[in-house]
């Protein structure tokens, strides 16, 4: 399994907000244990999807030169659940960016139904403090995830990458 908890970006406005979608499917093995007879997307993975949406939004502001790590989730509330067949839409708003990191607020919806909302704090990893992080290139991470096409997504596009 690869650790992608978003399928595609639908909107990406650099420095402001981003919208990503996640299609929940019964092919995801963990849903058969979570829970037997009542498959629902685990809240922790929804949070991961929200953090990936917000983390890439933040990372783009430094052209992915900063290593963005999830530092803290001061608030998260789950209002509802998402089942196989549901499309989760994660909407992240960048609240603050500073040299040490950033904060996003993120909401998860299925259609109009609010499923979860969270405030997420990210830190920029201090490369000078630990030489082992110098080899870690977040640009490669984002590129290898095939996520760079996010930047081709229109401001309020349909989710299709532009042809340019």
């Amino acid at each position, binding site marked *: 399994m690869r650790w992608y908890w978003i399928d595609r970006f639908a909107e990406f406005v650099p420095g402001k907000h981003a919208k990503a979608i996640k299609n929940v499917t019964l092919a995801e093995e963990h849903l058969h244990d979570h829970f037997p007879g009542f498959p629902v997307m685990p809240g922790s993975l929804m949070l991961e999807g929200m953090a990936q949406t917000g983390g890439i939004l933040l990372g783009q502001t430094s052209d992915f030169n900063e290593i963005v790590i999830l530092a*803290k989730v001061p608030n998260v509330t789950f209002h509802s659940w998402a089942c196989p067949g549901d499309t989760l839409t994660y909407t992240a708003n960048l609240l603050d960016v500073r040299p040490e990191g950033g904060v996003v607020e993120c909401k998860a919806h299925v259609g109009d139904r609010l499923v979860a909302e969270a405030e997420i704090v990210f*830190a920029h990893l201090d490369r000078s403090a630990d030489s082992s992080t110098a080899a870690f290139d977040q640009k490669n991470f984002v590129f290898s995830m095939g996520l760079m096409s996010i930047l081709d997504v229109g401001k309020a596009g349909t989710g299709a990458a532009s042809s340019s």
Partner: protein
Amino acid sequence: MPTSNEIYEKVREILVDALGADESECTPDATLMGDLGAESIDFLDIVFRLEKTFNVKIPRGELFPDNIGASDPSLAKDGALTPAGVAELKKRLPYADLDKFAKDPKIENISDLFTVGMIVKFMEAKLAAAS
């Protein structure tokens, strides 16, 4: 400009939100790490919230200085700050009460200087300078 008490009230709200601390625990003398259970990453969250609440910019290291003594061997020796190190700390943390710390200037005791009252004094000075 808000009064000291108004600033204290807001700082207390911030700490309740950021640390999940109880309002009654956030006395002026309470230490962020020892009494309120803050971890280093919480300092970043607290700075974010202070900036947002008071609409000011707090540059990196201004409220919570980075490792003092790590870069300069004349400031720290054998896990404790030298007199020069204590003087440097006083310069960087003008709002902290260093009298007690100076008697036992172990580096591990530096975190005890970060109190609720210190943040309030810092914000008072910051807002006075801005107004």
